[in-house]
């Protein structure tokens, strides 16, 4: 994992904790957009949207492109890699644990049944 992504994990989780910012990311997943274009569907002022955008940009999730007077934002490819990697590690370790637990529970149940049989 690249060290930059690792340092940014806190910023990424903070950025993702807000529904408006998640909606902005969903919108940008369809293609780049300017602050004005982003502000329209959210019924928010331009400064409010700009604040959200700077949180997303600091987390390394989006970037600004300069095109004359336009400043369209777009998603950074691989911006979510650090979070994805950590969560997938967590997921695979837990999944393996619970598969083993399924087996333990099945074995315990069979042992109990056998026990009852003997007592009878």
């Amino acid at each position, binding site marked *: *994992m690249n060290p930059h992504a*690792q*340092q*940014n*994990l*806190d910023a990424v*989780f*903070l950025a*993702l*904790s807000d529904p408006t910012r998640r909606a902005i990311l969903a919108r940008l997943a369809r293609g780049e957009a300017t602050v004005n274009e982003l502000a329209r569907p959210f019924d928010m002022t331009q400064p409010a949207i700009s604040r959200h955008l700077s949180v997303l940009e600091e987390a390394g999730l989006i970037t600004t492109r300069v095109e004359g007077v336009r400043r369209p934002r777009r998603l950074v490819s691989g911006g979510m890699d650090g979070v994805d*990697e*950590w*969560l997938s*590690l*967590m*997921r*695979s*370790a*837990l*999944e*393996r*644990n*619970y598969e*083993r*637990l*399924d*087996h*333990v*529970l*099945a074995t*315990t*149940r069979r042992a109990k049944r056998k026990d009852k049989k003997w007592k009878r």
Partner: protein
Amino acid sequence: MEKMKLATEGDRYIVVTRRFAAAPEAVYRAHTDPKLIQKWCLGPDGWTMPVCISDARPGGKIRYEWKNGTGEGFYLTGEFVELVPFSKIVHIERMHLPDPTPDNRVETRFEPDGKGTLMTMRMTLPDAATRAAMLSTGMEHGMEASYVRMERELEK
């Protein structure tokens, strides 16, 4: 059985849900009885838990020690906070990698679900430094498992 679900909640929590084909009593015991914990709480393949202390009462100590075949290891310590048989466990835990990570408060609930159990575990999302340490440990584990699989393939 339905697959596990793992979701982040805001920027502070992780919620894991999983169904089991056994009564809440059995699943609860598997989370508190050290003899049972040693059989399943092992993470990636190739690890064992030679030491497991689980004193299941409020204030009771928790200590899990993991080892792999090449002599590497790490451990976890903690304390039980609240136990409601067979429906709820609250405990605090920290990993020693080898420096202790900040305390993580974990709340695990067991609810009847048909003939089985729905387990919901809610834990604090560790901070960036802790995640980085866990990730680097986990990556080694993952890589080790991959190398073992690769060797097996090469022997064919």
